[in-house]
């Protein structure tokens, strides 16, 4: 009896002992990220402030009042917003098809959807330059069907930037909507139909609201990724669209104003943190409701 008791004690200790010191497991990762991730970002926030002149926030004032910089900040938001709306409009029908109609093809299609992630963004952007070239296949096609009679300039403007942005980001939208749409009970749609709702109103009043969570996830993710991207603007826009990350990228080596560059980075950071906060709030609400 005593032996058994003693034995069960050691078991408890064996299971319990590491538990008390278990928090040590988190220390390396946490320390690494505090030193090399949080601290530099914090430094950057301080660097964005202006310690010399009387006005601490003069860099931010410049960003939000100077015509040029304000235009860049606004353009960053507008481009991300438009890109997000476009990916939603283009991606939703694809997600719908993959969940409701693809059947056995759903898994291979899912693979096709993530396959572009195996290629570099520069490769995909370069691809659009080839397709949209003056003597490229898109111009040839438009000529062949008689829509144009001489090559049009498809590159170096907002059009090609949006095509490039949507092309890179639309898989993230589709991937966000699919799991939510899959969870929608098709019997609800059938009930709506049986009760006399038309196909269209069933979609807009039942299916679409029920897939809201997926849409929200996708919208926030795409908006966030779009805000930070600059390669498409750089290689397909040729200066026609200037966003914050592009400006940071281009001016970094040229500009002498480190404070202003830091402030631009921080504005970008604030936009993304706002997105993360909204996302957290929305998922928290969901948990509370359950």
């Amino acid at each position, binding site marked *: 009896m005593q032996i058994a008791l003693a034995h069960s004690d050691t078991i408890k200790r*064996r299971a319990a002992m*590491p538990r008390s010191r278990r928090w040590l497991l*988190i220390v390396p990762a946490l320390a*690494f990220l505090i030193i090399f991730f949080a601290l530099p*970002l914090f430094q950057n926030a301080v660097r964005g402030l202006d310690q010399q002149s009387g006005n601490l926030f003069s860099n931010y004032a410049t960003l939000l009042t100077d015509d040029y910089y304000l235009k860049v900040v606004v353009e960053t938001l507008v481009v991300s917003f438009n890109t997000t709306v476009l990916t939603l409009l283009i991606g939703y029908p694809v997600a719908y098809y993959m969940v409701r109609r693809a059947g056995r093809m759903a898994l291979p299609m899912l693979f096709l959807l993530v396959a572009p992630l195996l290629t570099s963004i*520069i490769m995909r952007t370069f*691809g659009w330059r080839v397709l949209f070239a003056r003597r490229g*296949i898109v111009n040839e096609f438009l000529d062949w069907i008689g829509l144009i009679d001489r090559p049009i300039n498809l590159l170096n403007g907002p059009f090609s930037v949006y095509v490039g942005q949507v092309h890179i980001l639309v*898989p993230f939208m589709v991937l966000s909507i699919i799991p939510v749409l899959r969870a929608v009970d098709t019997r609800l749609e059938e009930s709506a139909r049986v009760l006399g709702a038309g196909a269209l109103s069933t979609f807009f009043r039942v299916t679409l609201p029920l897939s809201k969570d997926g849409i929200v996830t996708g919208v926030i993710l795409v908006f966030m990724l779009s805000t930070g991207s600059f390669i498409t603007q750089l290689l397909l826009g040729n200066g026609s669209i200037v966003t914050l990350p592009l400006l940071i990228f281009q001016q970094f080596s040229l500009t002498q104003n480190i404070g202003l560059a830091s402030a631009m980075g921080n504005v970008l950071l604030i936009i993304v943190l706002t997105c993360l906060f909204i996302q*957290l709030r929305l998922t928290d609400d969901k948990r509370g409701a359950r």
Partner: protein
Amino acid sequence: MSTLLLRWHPGRWGWHLLTLYTALFFVFVFAPIAVVVAVSFTAEQGVQFPFHGTSLQWYVRLWEYKPFVDSLLTSLYLAIASAAAAILLAVPAALYLGRSTGAVATVIASFLLAPIAIPALVVGMSLLYFLSAIGIGVSFTALFITHTIVSISYVMRTTLSVYRSVSQSLGEAAAVLGASSWRTFIHVTLPLIAPGIFAGSLFAILVSLDNLALSYFFGTANVTTLPVVMLSYLQNQFDPAIAAISTVQMAISIALLLIVEKTYGLRALTTQ
């Protein structure tokens, strides 16, 4: 677009239209990739599609153009080294967080996952000043630290989600049967979470290979990564060499994916 939205639902025609639309969507997704692979085999001097005659001349040019070869090797070495460091740091953290439910643990988990969400350009710029101040400056070490930050998040994410789906009772059973916590980890927990670690490392490596913004600030004349070299090449000349190096990089990524698929299957990739 909107007419399609209004028409698809009712009846057979709607579905036919939607099928056609989805097919066109995948053409849109793959057209720019396919065209680059094709152009890499061109026998012509310029970038054009369609083209006449195929050759491997641009792959030969790659081999002869030193910056491409050097930076590709740097990128591969960097991606693997930072993924390995991320595994060492993130797996213990995931083991802790996977069995903790408190508010503090939730905050820490969000913090460890944050580097994925923060624009890489901002991370890179901030780190440049920080690392210069502590004397690391622009070097391979700086690249290694920067890429490890983001890799930690990728490894954390998949490992955590796999570990949370694994029953806690298996580890406890091993402990009850007398296994030490180290032996429990090596023989029970590690094999169970290995798919998550592999999937996360694969993500981390793929992202590292393609991440221009993270590397941009730290390249020196001797040590720099492939995306940085590709971008500066592209800004100076427009020839099929870019197509060839892109195709090589894609082939490497596909090979890595196949290795993970052969080892653990791809199911772990779709858990999150």
